[in-house]
């Protein structure tokens, strides 16, 4: 079955080839973990490597901020817009939702104008402030995602975690049921150093890697590396050495890099 490559080295392998076409995929993480970078990479890779035009829909960051940040990775977003392969659209969640429900609405027009096949929605967290409760959030996001799927788009949604480390007390678990894949990004402290961890929590209709892997934001974008080794409780943000590793340390084994 066809897969949609994310363009993030290592992530496609974890997803057994990438996302499925016309699915909704969620990346959740604390501020600064690289959600937007991963999202821009997904869109840029789609356009430049797969000939799949894309839309970046932003609810808060100005498009010029995306142009600037993308340029840091060598991605020329204004150039892609000039070629009619990209639209960086800024609007509010309520307007986007209304327009999506309308025949010939703004997103439909943009998608048709460039033949868009991918969309980054950055971020779905903003829906949480326009609805009264969790049930309404689920309904709003469900309608929104279905509208985007109707346009034939493969969707990458970002969501901001409420806490910098460990689990999110305000996690919108209901969103996990709406999406086809769910990727978690976390800060992890190991040996007084902050690292970043990535976990594919769910992928509907497919196997996926279940280990927690280290990733870095490099000059070329995000790169997923090897799994963490010898650590327990990574997703808590403050892991401890596994018993075997602790034993080794206690008896003088070298503390060589735990992340291969």
């Amino acid at each position: 079955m066809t897969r949609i490559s994310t363009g993030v080295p290592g992530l496609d392998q974890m997803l057994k080839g990438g996302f499925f076409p016309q699915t909704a995929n969620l990346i959740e993480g604390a501020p600064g973990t690289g959600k937007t970078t991963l999202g821009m990479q997904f869109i840029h890779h789609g356009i430049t490597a797969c000939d799949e035009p894309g839309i970046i829909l932003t609810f808060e960051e100005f498009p010029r901020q995306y142009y600037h940040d993308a340029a840091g990775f060598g991605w020329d977003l204004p150039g892609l817009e000039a070629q009619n392969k990209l639209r960086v659209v800024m609007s509010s969640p309520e307007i986007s939702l209304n327009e999506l429900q309308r025949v010939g609405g703004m997103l439909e027009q943009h998608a048709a104008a460039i033949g868009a096949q991918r969309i980054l929605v950055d971020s779905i967290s903003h829906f949480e402030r326009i609805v009264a409760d969790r049930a309404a959030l689920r309904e709003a996001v469900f309608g929104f995602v279905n509208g985007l799927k109707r346009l034939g788009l493969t969707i990458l949604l970002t969501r901001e975690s409420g806490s910098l480390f460990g689990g999110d007390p305000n996690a919108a678990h209901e969103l996990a049921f709406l999406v086809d894949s769910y990727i978690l990004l976390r800060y992890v402290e190991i040996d007084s150093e902050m690292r970043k961890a990535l976990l594919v929590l769910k992928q509907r209709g497919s196997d996926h890697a279940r280990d927690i892997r280290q990733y870095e934001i490099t000059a070329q974008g995000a790169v997923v590396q090897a799994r963490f080794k010898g650590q327990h409780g990574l997703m808590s943000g403050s892991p401890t050495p596994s018993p075997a590793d602790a034993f080794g340390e206690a008896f003088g084994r070298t503390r060589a890099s735990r992340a291969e």
Partner: protein
Amino acid sequence: MDQHNTGASRLMDDIDPDLLAFIRNRVNSFIKWDLVSFFHDNPYTVDTADKIATYVGREAQVIRRELDALAKSGVLTVSGTPDQPIFGLASDPAVQDLVRRFHRACEDRQFRVRAMYHVIRGMQT
């Protein structure tokens, strides 16, 4: 008076006629200037007056008036409902080209000074 006219004439002569007309008839206030710059930098923004006011850091009521005027002059488009109009940059290539040329010209200090002169003059009449 003659001296004033001579000065004004010189300032007008120095500006591309298309841009001069654009300034005098469409970007004839500093808030409109801000809005045109905003839509140049963020060309696919589509939102309500309240939101756009937040984006440019100005008062919503004033912004609404200026957005309406820019829409009336064809720089912006309006969609949505009468209760909640939403504004975006016009898709007309000629308008987009003017906005681009205006923005590029504004990078030159001399042009900005001349453009400001015309905006202030327009606001006084």
